[in-house]
């Protein structure tokens, strides 16, 4: 203690020299100044120490444990997410307010979350990163308040909010205060929806009520093998339903990106996820008041793409990969696909054309013939609504044989789910370009951003065929009971198996593939 005091005195002396030299303070007042100066220094020192503790989170051993699990710490994640030196932290020294169960003796500056704003490729974003090393990242009331503060700030400024989730759940010791905290966040998620982009990156557990925040954000990404999302964990599942299931099966990245559709994409590890997130943000505007971003573009907008001539097979029943069409059209084949492994019969994602972000929707003939079903309709609808909210033009590639028939679909409500996609396209007021690459059959034709739903520019490729249904089905109704139905089938194909019926009715802007660019369309 004495040596510490000595150190203060020494430093104080140096400082008072500095004061005397600069402000001409005379010797008489030196003593008083010396005592207040010592106080200031002590406070400074305390701040330093608190900061140092805050930077350590739950301490060395917990940090090691975090690393052993293959996870970065909350701070390391922010460090990697933001441009060097750009992160500005909020509320670094707040502490939790719980005094039950001996909690008053365990306090960590900043509690179990790190919040603030930073730059991502030079653009501002607000963020919070839950710190699993402090009380397992559990959500205390102060933890929730910190998150709410950045969310409010983001709304004021008009900038995205990024949540890096790694939390065991509610702070049980705080009871209803913790639950209230969740609700405060949920409310803000809802109020921010459609105003600023909200992105969740699940980098550890996220269970119970906590899952609803990511669910209400625009995009939920996960990290393979280390992240979980579920309402109740495997133990509760076992006790309630007697099901044996692992965490990974119940709510791992694979489950949510392929089966449930809860998450939009999974990344290999924390580093990959954060680098990809930086890249992803480059596609999004900062808020609904900003235009879709235009980045400097090196790929000529009028580039000829001979490949588009050969992708659609000559056999109209043969499958092809719509993703090939998409990547050949967008700048530099750079396509950020959303939900690549869920409802694969529809493709959604972001690309750029002449540098400007566009949202791409496309039927995928390779999977389930590219039909619309419940999952693909819901997947598409949510994406279209996001693009509409954030001024991102939508390009739709249509090759749809119709809605998927069957009891499975009907009983689960394909009618109301399909209506969501229809509603989303009809409602959207962003520029909408539609390219019919092959089939546009039945009600699904109408749904897929047709001319009749305020499509701005609708193109048909020479392979396009728009009809109420395929030749076989149509002729079997039209010529029921007549012999030689196949003759009529040929007639039907001749009549509808081409772009002309719609072209003569003025549905398209032009037939042909050479018009695939977007610069002529102004928002």
């Amino acid at each position, binding site marked *: 203690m004495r040596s510490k005091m000595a150190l203060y005195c020494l430093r104080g002396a140096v400082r008072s020299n500095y004061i005397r030299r600069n402000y001409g303070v005379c010797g008489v007042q030196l003593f008083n100044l010396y005592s207040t100066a010592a106080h200031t220094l002590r406070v400074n020192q305390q701040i330093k120490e608190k900061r140092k503790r805050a930077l350590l989170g739950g301490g060395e051993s917990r940090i090691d444990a975090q690393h052993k699990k293959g996870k970065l710490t909350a701070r390391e994640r922010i460090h*990697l997410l933001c441009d060097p030196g*750009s992160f500005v932290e909020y509320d670094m020294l707040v502490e939790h307010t719980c005094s039950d169960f001996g909690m008053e003796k365990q306090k960590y500056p900043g509690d179990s979350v790190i919040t603030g704003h930073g730059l991502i490729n030079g653009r501002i974003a607000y963020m919070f990163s839950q710190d699993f090393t402090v009380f397992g990242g559990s959500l205390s009331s102060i933890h929730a308040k910190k998150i709410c503060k950045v969310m409010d700030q983001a709304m004021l400024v008009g900038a995205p909010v990024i949540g890096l989730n790694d939390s065991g759940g509610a702070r049980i010791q705080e009871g209803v205060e913790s639950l209230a905290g969740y609700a405060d966040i949920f409310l803000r998620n809802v109020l921010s929806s459609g105003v600023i982009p909200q992105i969740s990156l699940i980098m550890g557990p996220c269970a119970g009520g906590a899952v609803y925040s990511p669910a209400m954000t625009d995009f939920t990404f996960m990290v393979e093998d280390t992240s979980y999302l579920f309402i109740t964990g495997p133990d509760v599942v076992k006790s309630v339903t007697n099901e044996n299931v692992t965490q990974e099966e119940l709510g791992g990245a694979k489950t949510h990106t392929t089966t449930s559709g809860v998450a939009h994409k999974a990344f290999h590890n924390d580093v990959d996820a954060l680098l990809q997130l930086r890249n992803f943000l480059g596609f999004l505007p900062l808020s609904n008041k900003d235009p879709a971003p235009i980045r400097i573009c090196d790929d000529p907008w009028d580039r000829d793409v001979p490949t588009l001539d050969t992708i659609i097979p000559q056999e109209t029943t043969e499958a092809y990969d719509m993703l090939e069409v998409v990547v050949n059209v967008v700048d530099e084949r750079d396509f950020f696909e959303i939900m690549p492994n869920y409802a694969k019969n529809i493709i959604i994602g972001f690309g750029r054309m002449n540098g400007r972000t566009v949202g791409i929707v496309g039927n995928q003939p390779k999977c389930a013939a590219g039909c619309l079903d419940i999952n693909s309709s819901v997947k598409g609808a949510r994406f279209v609504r996001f693009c509409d909210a954030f001024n991102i033009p939508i390009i739709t590639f249509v090759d749809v044989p119709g809605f998927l028939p069957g009891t499975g679909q009907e009983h689960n409500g394909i009618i109301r789910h399909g209506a969501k996609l229809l509603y989303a396209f009809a409602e959207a007021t962003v520029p909408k370009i539609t390219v019919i690459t092959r089939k546009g059959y039945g009600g699904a034709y109408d749904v897929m951003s047709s001319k009749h739903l305020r499509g701005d520019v609708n193109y048909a490729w020479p392979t396009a065929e728009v009809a109420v249904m395929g030749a076989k089905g149509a002729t079997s109704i039209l010529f029921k009971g007549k012999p030689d139905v196949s003759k009529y089938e040929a007639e039907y194909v001749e009549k509808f198996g081409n772009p002309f019926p719609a072209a003569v009715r003025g549905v398209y802007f032009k037939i042909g593939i050479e018009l695939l660019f977007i610069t002529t369309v102004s928002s």
Partner: protein
Amino acid sequence: MADEAVCIGPAATKDSYLNIDHIMLAVTKTGSQAVHPGYGFLSENAVFVEKLEAAGISFIGPSVEAINGMGDKLESKRLAQAAGVNTIPGFDGIVNDADHCVQIAREISYPVMIKASAGGGGKGMRIARNDDDARDGFRLASQEAASSFGDDRILVEKFIDKPRHIEIQVLGDKHGNAVYLNERECSIQRRNQKVIEEAPSVFLNEGTRKAMGEQAVSLCKRLGYYSAGTVEFLVDSEQKFYFLEMNTRLQVEHPVTEYITGVDLVHQMIRIAKGHPLLLTQKDIPIKGWAIESRVYSEDPYKNFGLPSIGRLYKYIEPLHVPNVRCDSGIDEGSEISIYYDPMICKLVCYGNTRNDAINTSLEALDSYVIRGVTHNIPLLRDILTETNFIEGNISTNYLSEVYPDGFKGRQLNSTDKQHILAIAACVFSKMDMRSYTFLNERPSTAKRKEPAEWTLVISLFDEELQCDVKKVGNKFHVHMKTDTLSVEDHINLSSPLIQTNINGKPIVMQLVSKDASGKLQIVYQGTTFTIFVLSDKASKFLKMMPEKPTVDVSKVVLSPMPGMVKSVSCEVGDTMAEGQEVCIIEAMKMQNSLVAGASGKVKAVHVKAGDTVGEDDVLIEFE
């Protein structure tokens, strides 16, 4: 390319290109007067020629008798002997079965070559060095022969070790004249299919050339051969040559002969078919300069020097800007390479005054040849062209297995090469990073948002890691690695497949295949694609803390090495298989590939059956 195209049927060749009726229909429909059959398919089919002649249409090729005589290996050997051409010792008859094959092989003495009587182009050929090989070889060769040629007759002959494959181009007319247009050296082969051909040969002396040429002409005259043809010889190290076979058609590699002789072979064929006499005499045929043909295939050179690869060429740019380069190809950007046909993309023919000139032109052309969407063999072609034995002309048909005993592993880099690749990778990364800051329509903000101009990067290539400092100064990147600083001019366009810039003032050409946000770059340097990871130093530090992902244990599964069709499955669930035992056969591009168990074990699951179509790396069979 064609003025008129006629659909002759579905993709499978037996329903289209090999279907004589369909072709005849196309001929009548277009009112054609003559048919040039190309290299493969019906080009050596006498029935087709007969049908054409019966319909009064000229066949731009030889007579039915010549095709029949030379198309059958046994018959052709007899004819060649009669014409005074040197032939290989062998069994003069049809092999009945595997045992018979073994018996004959023992008589001739190993090694022997087992081949389809009706074969050609390397299909249906197997080398046997012992009884077991002979049995297997007989079975596989006869199966391949049956499926490729519809004729499973097999013959056996002495196999000459370390031979060169040198062939003589001939032209004969309908008036009894014949000339030889010198030789083509086609020794660089994999699985008996040619990879690189050149004319002339570095090996032949004037005397041998003349002797070979004269024997070839003598064979033509004896046959009354007209049109273009090729007499193939095996030449041993003492310049002794043996007749192998005669191809009664235009050969794939004919452009090298055209280059050095100045004779347009197709033109001559058409003239001859019309009945015009040859205007050329032997003394009119020179050897002028040197030509090299590199066959660019859609195949993976790292697997057995080339297993077929399929896909769509989403980007395709031929290096026609390089002088003295000829690209004969039947595909364009957007074309699909399918399992139905030979996977050749292009014949890249380069010419020069000397062999060295031709090699250098080839290198330049290959470096700027852009092919995306399929795996191709440019890495191997590029490497052969700079390999010492090739440059010295020290080659044989065993060249590949001798020069690359453990298989082709890609270009081996020296330290300067490595530095150059890493420097370019660093610049590409920096350029991408700079671009990610440049938004044109952002609202003005008080925040500092200057794009970075300095980077500390960690780059890894193979398992090596290197720290690298990059600084953008004016129009240059200064890349500092270890003790060296390289100055790279910023001519890098992130959208262009080619990177043509200067490092320390010296021009270099590389290709940028792919780039992604996780720092993975694929860069082609001297033909080979290198995968390079570039990360900021902090991302690299954090990445080291990430656990390795477990990989699939491939010794417990048999994966399909290429896309194709399952010909047969030779095991069932529960069978115990020995290491190296055949489990199934995959057929693609008319080649049969026998897949073997990687380790001894019991079969747990069989995922395919005969007739299934499989993709590359599909799991076919699992072991317990």
